[in-house]
């Protein structure tokens, strides 16, 4: 180890260390620094400063060399990340390229990553729904994984807490399966979305089509202005980084807030090798990092450690943190660390047309993306032969149809005088998958990355439950579309590998029992009370709602608990 002298150790000692700077790491840093803790935030990638480091954010379409399209050489060199819907010329610089950080696919898994300050919070699709008791009670009710150690009431106030700061738009829809939050005004449904919403409401007692809830400042409150953020400009260029802070990202919101406290030290270019555990003290004492520029190994020390490296990498860090006490990974007395990982099933889509509302179109762009159909299957009772259910996106839009036929001046005229096509509607499924012991991540026995960290092996797949659920989604949406009078209804099912949903979760799950889980109800490692895991790795099950808002709420809650325990002298 380099530079082991007393002063240096003092310089490298903090009250808290946060591993990772994305969606949940940003919250950990904000909460801990806000409570007065000198906090070190470690990020393996480069720094990305709000506005300054968004190189494409103000570019016009014609300013892109290939008008947004990725060059074939880049596509062919990056088959995995190229499958991500947002990997285009305007945002490619925020994605990890395939060769840069290899991993081992025991089964095909499209691991989409953003290694930079802010992580994937720059790139997410910004859908934010609360989970309900139907989600937290799922494993206990349906007999899979283990029981969540918390219920909706435990986290509800923390949802409110993070929603107010992040800024979430939505309507109070009054649905038990999708609890209301602290909302900014919703982005409205358009004529066909509203028509479908009314139709579904009239025909089905438990099905709803609502305005999608999303992390956009539709109408900022003072707290958002205080963060230096402004109203969403509805540009829908979010993946480039938003100079207005119109949507929530760690870069625009939590990290600058934490920096403003004067308590945050941000250290990019720092790959975490492991968490240091002291056998004698019986607790974690710090974090070992490798500087990606100098390859130097440096130890940092702190009283508490928050692990927010993103689900898969959090598992990697914990598994690689071995000691006499924990030969199989930090806190892994149960042996379940790395197991029971799961994801979301986004592999089916619907499209159709609607021959009506020709007098209406839309103008501009909807940052929320349209409508959202909360899970309606197996919610109040088990009614199908598969477990759990799916939410669905729903949106309607009219495309401009430009006549591309012919050449010359008539073609020029056609291109200018475009016509609106009929209304098109689309939907995609967002299904819950079941965490299983056989779905795991582990360290590769031989292969290591450039910093001496073992490569992660990933092994998870769809199962019969997912297939049945997908079939049901297609059947139910087809029925709903048909009864609404939509035409040309097409269902499509793709054969994407897990991972492309970018909702991988689990591996260090929460639970009541240290014998079957890694974390307790406070996201605290059962056996190491000064280490907290609050990113996707902590999730006991996956729900079908988007997970980011829940990571934020769990993080704020855990940070509050951690600091109060520190004050009581328990940590």
């Amino acid at each position, binding site marked *: 180890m380099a530079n082991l002298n007393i002063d240096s150790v003092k310089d490298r000692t903090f009250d808290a260390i946060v591993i990772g700077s994305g969606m949940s790491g940003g919250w950990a840093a904000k909460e801990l620094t806000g409570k007065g803790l000198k906090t070190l935030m470690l990020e393996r990638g480069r720094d990305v400063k709000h506005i300054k480091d968004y190189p494409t954010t*103000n570019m*016009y*379409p*014609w*300013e892109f*060399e*290939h*008008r947004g*399209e*990725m*060059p*074939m*050489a880049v596509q062919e060199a990056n088959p995995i990340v190229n499958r991500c819907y947002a990997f285009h010329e305007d945002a490619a610089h925020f994605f990890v390229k395939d060769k840069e950080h290899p991993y081992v696919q025991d089964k095909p898994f499209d691991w989409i990553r953003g290694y930079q300050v802010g992580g994937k919070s720059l790139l997410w699709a910004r859908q934010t729904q609360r989970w309900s008791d139907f989600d937290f009670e799922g494993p206990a009710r349906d007999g899979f994984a283990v029981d969540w150690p918390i219920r909706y009431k435990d986290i509800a106030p923390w949802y409110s807490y993070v929603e107010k700061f992040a800024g979430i738009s939505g309507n109070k829809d009054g649905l038990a399966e999708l609890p209301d939050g602290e909302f900014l005004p919703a*982005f*409205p*449904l*358009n*004529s066909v*979305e*509203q028509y479908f919403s009314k139709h579904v409401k009239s025909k089905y007692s438990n099905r709803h089509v609502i305005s999608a809830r999303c992390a956009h400042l539709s109408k900022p409150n003072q707290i958002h202005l205080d963060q230096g953020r402004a109203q969403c*400009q*509805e*540009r*829908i*260029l979010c993946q480039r980084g938003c100079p207005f802070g119109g949507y929530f990202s760690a870069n625009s919101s939590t990290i600058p807030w934490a920096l403003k406290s004067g308590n945050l030290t941000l250290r990019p270019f720092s790959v975490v090798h492991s968490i240091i555990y002291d056998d004698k003290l019986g607790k974690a004492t710090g974090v070992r990092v490798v500087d990606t520029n100098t390859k130097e190994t440096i130890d940092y020390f702190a009283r508490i450690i928050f692990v927010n490296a993103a689900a898969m990498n959090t598992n990697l860090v914990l598994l690689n943190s071995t000691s006499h006490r924990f030969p199989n990974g930090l806190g892994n007395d149960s042996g379940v660390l790395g197991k029971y990982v799961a994801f979301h099933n986004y592999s089916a889509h619907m499209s159709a047309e609607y021959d009506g509302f*020709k*007098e*209406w*179109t*839309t*103008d*501009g*762009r*909807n*940052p929320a993306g349209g409508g959202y159909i909360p899970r309606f299957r197996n919610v109040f009772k088990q009614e199908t032969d598969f477990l759990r259910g799916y939410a669905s996106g729903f949106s309607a839009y009219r495309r401009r149809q*430009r006549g*591309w*036929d*012919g*050449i*010359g*001046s008539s*073609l*020029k005229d056609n*291109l*200018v005088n475009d016509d*609106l096509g009929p209304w098109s509607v689309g939907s995609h499924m967002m299904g819950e998958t079941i965490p299983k012991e056989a779905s795991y991540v582990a360290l590769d026995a031989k292969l290591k990355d450039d910093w001496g960290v073992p490569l992660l092996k990933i092994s998870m797949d769809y199962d019969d439950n997912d297939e049945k659920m997908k079939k049901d989604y297609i059947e139910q949406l087809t029925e709903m579309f048909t009864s609404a009078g939509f035409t040309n209804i097409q269902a499509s099912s793709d054969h994407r590998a897990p991972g492309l949903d970018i909702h991988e979760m689990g591996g260090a799950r929460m639970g009541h029992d240290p014998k079957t889980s890694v974390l307790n109800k406070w996201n605290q490692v059962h056996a190491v009370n000064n280490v907290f895991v609050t990113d996707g790795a902590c999730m006991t099950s996956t729900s079908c709602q988007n997970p980011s808002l829940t990571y934020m709420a769990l993080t704020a809650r855990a940070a509050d608990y951690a600091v109060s325990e520190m004050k009581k002298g328990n940590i």
Partner: protein
Amino acid sequence: MHRRIAIKNLALIIGGAALLPSCVHNSGKASVKLKNVDINADQEKLIGDMAETIIPKTNTPGAKDLQLHLFVLKMVDDCYTKKDQQDFMTGMGQFTDLVKKQYSRSFGECDQKQREQTLLSIEQDKDPKSTTYPAELKSFYGMVKGQTVNGYTTSKYFMTKQVVYELVPGRYNAFYPVRKKQAV
């Protein structure tokens, strides 16, 4: 020459929309630097003449004014598969031969009407097994036309003068009467 290439490439980068005077090629090489397809000055001129036939200068700028042929070449060079690039080159040869056979002169030497007729008859031949127009030729024409139109409709000229692209402020009107003229 280097400076000229640099200026042209820059023009392409900032949108292929700068109004540069078209330059006369004295050397046999294309004026735009390409990595995968080997294009000489004659071929570049051919693409320029085709693009200009597709999007001619009228009372508004045409393909050459907007350097769309360079955009076509750039896209074929960077964003197409090897197979498509081979088809492009083969099809271009077939196209050149076909014109020579039909009119006993090059496409560039044809008059406007001949040029238009040549391109339109390829476009209007929907028979995939056509003996007049082999698959590669159609594929070549499809790429030239597709990227000419793509370059045109995404050019700064088109997106500022013909339609209005608004970067900011944006808006979302969920109910918007169709009759009003919209921005993009």
